């Protein structure tokens, strides 16, 4: 609903990914007309993955974007700055086929596991292995496309998979009695998988006011979602032109935190801890050589400050 806003509004290009967590805040912001309240006019661009958005941030074609937890190494290497935490993903699972003899992470040893490389699925598998003292070389990891995992697991080409909902719902149609070996919640609050909104590295310094305004929009949208989770699923489905059924129940697999609580967690350093923990995993996974400290790339102060702006 930004089309009817006044022409003096500041234009903001915003990237997102066409799934529930990647779109919900923007769908709600559009529906509730939160943008014009901040004098902003969003130009939304849908992407299929995080790295492409970061690339577009680098070429100044995007002002803001959305990253899943698997792409958090990008801000951790200075390629983008995080402006806010969106939701905490709890959809990721390590699942195993019935009869594969896998019931707990330790049973994964020597098994064939399908993983979409560089995603949160990749990470939860790594965590699960580490918890039990297994090395990646102790299992046979088969990297593949997310939708490939569905088929591969369904057809029994692999023993286990590290994947997420709602794709697991698809798998369940064919393998109803699959075993959930590990789930994201198992690691909370030590570790969680936040998905975030990011911006160009320079923009925060050059135009903090803009970043603050955008953050305010995101906070407002987030709080609306926290209050109306089911409604938000419908709005998002409409926004993505998907059948409502496809997103129904999405909120089951995310943890929604009110912005007040997120502010608190930011101020007490918990959020920085999440990011640093994840960054350490990335380093251990050889995704990057060394990490920046979370305080260098998470704009926590701006986030906290955005909460103080009175709604117009």
């Amino acid at each position: 609903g930004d089309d009817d806003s006044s022409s003096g509004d500041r234009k903001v290009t915003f990237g997102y990914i066409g799934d529930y967590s990647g779109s919900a805040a923007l769908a709600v912001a559009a529906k509730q007309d939160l943008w014009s309240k901040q004098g902003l006019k969003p130009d939304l661009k849908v992407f299929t993955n995080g790295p492409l958005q970061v690339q577009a941030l680098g070429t100044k074609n995007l002002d803001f974007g959305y990253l899943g937890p698997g792409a958090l190494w990008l801000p951790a290497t200075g390629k983008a700055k995080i402006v806010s935490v969106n939701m905490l993903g709890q959809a990721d699972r390590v699942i195993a086929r019935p009869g594969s003899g896998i019931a707990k992470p330790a049973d994964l040893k020597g098994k064939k596991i399908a993983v979409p490389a560089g995603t949160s699925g990749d990470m939860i598998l790594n965590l699960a292995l580490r918890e039990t003292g297994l090395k990646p070389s102790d299992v046979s990891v088969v990297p593949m496309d997310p939708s490939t995992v569905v088929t591969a697991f369904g057809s029994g080409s692999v023993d286990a998979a590290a994947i997420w909902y709602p794709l697991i719902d698809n798998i369940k149609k064919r393998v109803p009695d699959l075993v959930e070996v590990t789930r994201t919640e198992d690691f909370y609050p030590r570790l969680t998988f936040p998905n975030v909104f990011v911006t160009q590295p320079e923009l925060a310094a050059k135009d903090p006011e803009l970043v603050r305004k955008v953050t305010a929009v995101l906070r407002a949208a987030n709080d609306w979602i926290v209050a109306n989770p089911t409604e938000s699923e419908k709005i998002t489905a409409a926004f993505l032109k998907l059948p409502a059924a496809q997103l129904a129940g999405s909120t089951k697999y995310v943890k929604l935190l009110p912005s007040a609580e997120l502010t608190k967690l930011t101020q007490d350093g918990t959020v920085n801890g999440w990011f640093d923990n994840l960054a350490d995993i990335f380093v251990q996974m050889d995704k990057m050589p060394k990490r920046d400290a979370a305080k260098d790339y998470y704009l926590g102060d701006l986030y906290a400050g955005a909460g103080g702006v009175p709604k117009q």
Partner: protein
Amino acid sequence: MSEDTKPARPGGASPDTAEAPSAPGTTAKAPTGRRIPLPKPSSVLLSLCSAALGLLVWIGLTKSGIEDLPGPWAVAKRGAELVEDGTLFDDMGASLRRVLTGYLLGVALAIPVGFAMGWYPIVRRLIDPWIQFFRMVPPLAIIPLAILTMGIDEKPKVFVIFLAAFLSSVVSTYQGVVSVDSTLVNAARVLGAKDRQVFIGVVVPASTPFILVGMRIGLGASWATVVAAELIAAQSGLGFRMQQAQLYYDLPTIFVQLIAIGAIGLVMDRLLLLAERRLTGWQERR
């Protein structure tokens, strides 16, 4: 006086067409040596048969126990839904716009470049290796580069399609120029034609058949690249929708887009075929 030496007489107009006099009419016979030609089934009937054949294979595959493979019915239902809520036509419009723009630009560049390569051997030998090189490079690999240089609007999407169309039609164009009969070029030159006139008057029309074949090849390449192109921040489009459906493993939707792409492409291909028939009617054909 035989009337043959005065072909200007009425009634002698059209039949003098025997170019290969030692085998006139043999083309009317199937090369299989059958002597009595089968009654030729109408082309519409054959098209229907062809479509039915495809459908049968599909149903066969569905029934043969491949799980998840959606049957024609499921796909048709999903297609109807997508038509109803307008997305299918929106997506078609968006993709068609991109493909047409990229394709037309690609062909528009391929023709002069192909001519230059055919006309000046030096140009050919300098450029040809690069053309062949880039022909091998996957369009998916071009995307980061396209974003770097062109951002994320329509430009890079159109560019990826443009590149595919250009690379596949330029080769055909220059092969057309190279194979222009040198006798025709000489014939024009002895009539006083200078380079430019030889080029416009002889080389261009003589290579039209090749250019049109190149355009058909380029069309296939353009459509086959549309999914890759729409990975770049597309808001709509058949390729984008297909990608999104892959996120949710929504096979019927993938099939709808797939069929839409194939069908539009096929229609465009048949149009080009018509143009080819029309523009190169002067050719002697088997």
